[in-house]
């Protein structure tokens, strides 16, 4: 089961009001390679992942990704909470605003809504772990692009934190793959 702890994983600081940047940050809120995809993907794969290590790492990284989803939503909200309609008009956030107001919503930077088509769970541990490693690199690359366009130092700082997490997650999924491969090798010989 899941328990909520009433704190962010990282202290998010946002120094500006910037609806255009907020719309770009939504890419990690509801986009294909974003935190929601990551969380749902890993938690979905749990049921058919062999080895205790494999089940544990999918559970714990999946859970951490939901905490990251919360950070992204927080960044978006802080960027727009004080925005007047004049500041929102003419920015990419305007289309989001007329549907959702200032509330973060799981779609990507282009407004495409989140879908389970973004994730895969093949019930095959080798396929699933490679999917997870690829997902971490895609997320890391997305953070590279977002960092390059962010002009708010607080936002950039939070993005750097999240980017580093993807690198660590890649390492853990790589280790899980080694463990699962070893286990499956053992089973080949009777």
């Amino acid at each position, binding site marked *: 089961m899941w328990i909520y702890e009433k704190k962010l994983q*990282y202290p998010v600081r946002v120094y500006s009001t910037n609806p255009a940047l907020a719309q770009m940050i939504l890419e990690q809120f509801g986009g294909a390679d974003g935190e929601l995809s990551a969380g749902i993907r890993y938690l979905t794969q749990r049921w058919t992942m062999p080895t205790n290590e494999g089940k544990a790492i999918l559970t714990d990284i999946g859970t951490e990704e939901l905490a990251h989803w919360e950070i992204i939503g927080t960044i978006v909200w802080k960027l727009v909470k004080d925005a007047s309609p004049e500041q929102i008009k003419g920015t990419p956030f305007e289309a989001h605003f007329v549907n959702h107001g200032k509330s973060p919503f799981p779609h990507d930077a282009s407004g495409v809504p989140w879908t389970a088509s973004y994730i895969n769970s093949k019930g095959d541990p080798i396929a699933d772990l*490679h999917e997870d*490693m690829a997902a971490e690199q895609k997320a*890391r*690359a997305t*953070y*590279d*692009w977002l*960092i*390059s366009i962010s002009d708010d130092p607080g936002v950039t700082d939070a993005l*750097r*934190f*999240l*980017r*580093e*997490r993807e*690198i*660590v997650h*890649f*390492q853990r*999924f*790589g*280790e899980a*793959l*080694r463990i699962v*491969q*070893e286990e499956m090798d053992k089973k080949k010989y009777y």
Partner: protein
Amino acid sequence: MDYGYYDRNRRMELARAYVPFQRLKQVYDPKEALMKGTLFPELYMPYKKDWEDVKGGGYYE
């Protein structure tokens, strides 16, 4: 489990991906770890803005 054995003695097969196991050495103190995004110096690979890079953005080393 001796992870050194995992990496040293294991024969590598074709058509497989291998990520080396991390071995715990030094750690950052919790304050610095949170700022950097990891407890482990060997996993700290920050974004570098390198416009000459073919990727056009940045990469980690």
